[in-house]
């Protein structure tokens, strides 16, 4: 079963087409990377999948549910971590996780699971306003994964984090992917993409310009690594 199927997705902001007929199929399980430069349309694509934006044209389905017509069903299956997501500064980390578990109708075991995922130890009882950027990202990721989503949409999950927090986040993503959660992530870090992603799609100016397994793509384009692939494809793109 496909976790995500997008067909001919267009999205305009005013007269500006940000997505230009994107078609995409993400198989269930594993980590799928959506890679592209700033302004390529990654965040818009994620927002459509997260039911926040409507496509101007085309359709998108998550586990067979239409993101427009069956948005509430989709929201029960997904967790979304926006690129610059913030925290409720006056809530403690535990208070936030408790709120999330209650919103999803989950019990205390989910809360404890969230605390474990965050790996924040005693800091989970501090106000999130006092957290560093890395700690904030970890608590938000914990909030996403503690609800055991079928699809986790993570927009640049490690952007701006130091090495320690980045490694932690990547480890958690891989761990949950192996347990069956499907991830669709974006990143500018090609080493991270190489480590995390089972398949990737290169998106440029709202269009998918390459798609496949990282190793197959580098081999087929006769490049050493994903960075070279990225540069080559961006240079070739119209």
């Amino acid at each position, binding site marked *: 079963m496909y976790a995500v199927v997008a067909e001919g997705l267009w999205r305009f902001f005013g007269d500006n087409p940000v997505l230009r007929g994107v078609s995409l199929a993400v198989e269930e399980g594993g980590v799928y990377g959506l890679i592209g430069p700033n302004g390529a349309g990654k965040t818009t694509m994620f927002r459509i999948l997260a039911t926040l934006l409507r496509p101007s044209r085309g359709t998108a389905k998550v586990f067979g549910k239409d993101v427009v017509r069956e948005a509430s069903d989709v929201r029960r299956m997904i967790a979304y971590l926006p690129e610059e*997501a913030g*925290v409720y500064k006056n809530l403690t980390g535990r208070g936030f996780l408790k709120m999330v578990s209650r919103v999803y109708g989950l019990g205390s075991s989910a809360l404890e699971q969230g605390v474990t995922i965050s790996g924040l130890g005693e800091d989970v009882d501090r106000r999130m306003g006092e957290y560093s950027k890395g700690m904030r990202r970890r608590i938000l990721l914990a909030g996403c994964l503690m609800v055991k989503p079928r699809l986790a949409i993570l927009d640049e999950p490690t952007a701006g984090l130091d090495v320690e927090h980045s490694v932690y986040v990547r480890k958690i993503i891989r761990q949950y992917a192996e347990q069956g959660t499907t991830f669709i992530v974006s990143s500018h870090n090609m080493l991270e993409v190489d480590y995390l992603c089972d398949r990737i799609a290169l998106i440029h100016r709202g269009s998918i310009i390459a798609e496949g397994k990282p190793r197959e793509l580098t081999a087929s384009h006769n490049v050493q690594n994903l960075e070279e692939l990225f540069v080559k494809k961006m240079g070739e793109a119209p």
Partner: protein
Amino acid sequence: MPLVSKELRELLSEKTILIGVVLMPLVIFPLIGFSMAPVNMREGDAGPGAAVLVVDQDGGKYAALFVEALRKTGFNPQPIQLQNDNLLQLIENSGASAAVIIPQGFSTQLEQKNKPTVKLFLKLASSSIVEFERIGSMRDRFYAAVSLMGEALASEEGVAVSFYKAPIDLSGEVVYRDQIISETDAGQLFQQFFASTLLIPIALTLVVTTSGTIAATSIGLEKEAKTLEMLLTYPIGRSTILASKLLGSTVVALLGTASLMTGLVFYFSRLTAFAGMSITLSLSPLNLVLLMVVLFFALVTTLGLGVLAGVLAGDVRGSQQLAGLIQLPLILLPLLLFLSGGIQSLQQPLATIILIIPFTHLMLAIQAILESSYLNILLHVGVMVAWTVAIIGLAAFLFRGERLLTMRVKLVRRKPVV
């Protein structure tokens, strides 16, 4: 000095400051003044030709002289016979602004150089500043008539200066809503009215204004802290999110209201005890409940406006500015009109415009509560409920779909950081 100059430039560059603080008063106050002109014109009841019922129980020459003095000071004295103490009814039915009772022995007392006492009844049509001004002006003219009497008496021989300056004592009373209130301490009376009719609307206006800002801030904070996107992808309806925000804001606003009302109740209890008057306008339990109902709907309406501002703006500052910009004229205009003289005194087109504003009905409902006009309370609460439903409906409409993320109204053009 460079800092002061910078501050001035920054503040005056803010459109909300420029419009709300500098330009708005320049528009609103002349508008109020313009709209109140007809009110002042209508003060014909207190101006030349104002009807005054005269109960002449004396019938002597000085009684006639006093009636003449009233005429000279611009009143229109209308002699009547008082039967079965029906003065209040006569004042009500005749449309007169005042009544005087010239007691039996009035002329004799003056002949004996004693001061007679004339009972004066001033009709207070409504509890507004204009009405207080009107009866104050009438009182002054009655005293002018007394002075005229004094001058007439002074032309007679043997009258002491101190006597002819004030040859008559005026025992003033105020007729309000078919009751007679002693005017022994007009200052206290005015303070009582002031507390009831001005302080409550002003206090409630403050509460209501603050509430809208709370709701706007609530949404602005989500946008600014970038928590909104995650919130909107949780498996809960937008209506639930909106209701939570409204409820949270309502609780905070009600806490503020409770604090304010506690202070008001304490103030009233002190005031009434001090005044020791036979009539008080402090609120009965029923009126207090009605006031709470009116306040509740005003709060929800304002919270709805705050939500609109929050949806349209991009951050906390923007949402607060926008909430203020939406609320300020909607609340301030009816409040000023209420304080100035009441909606009924406006010209028809202007009155119609003012009546469209939901908060006009807050003011009118408060006035109706203070006057225990229950039919009017029902009418104005009904209009407020209709407005509440409409505004919350609009807020819910904007809260749905992607408008919450994509709509942006910028009040200030921010220069890009270089």
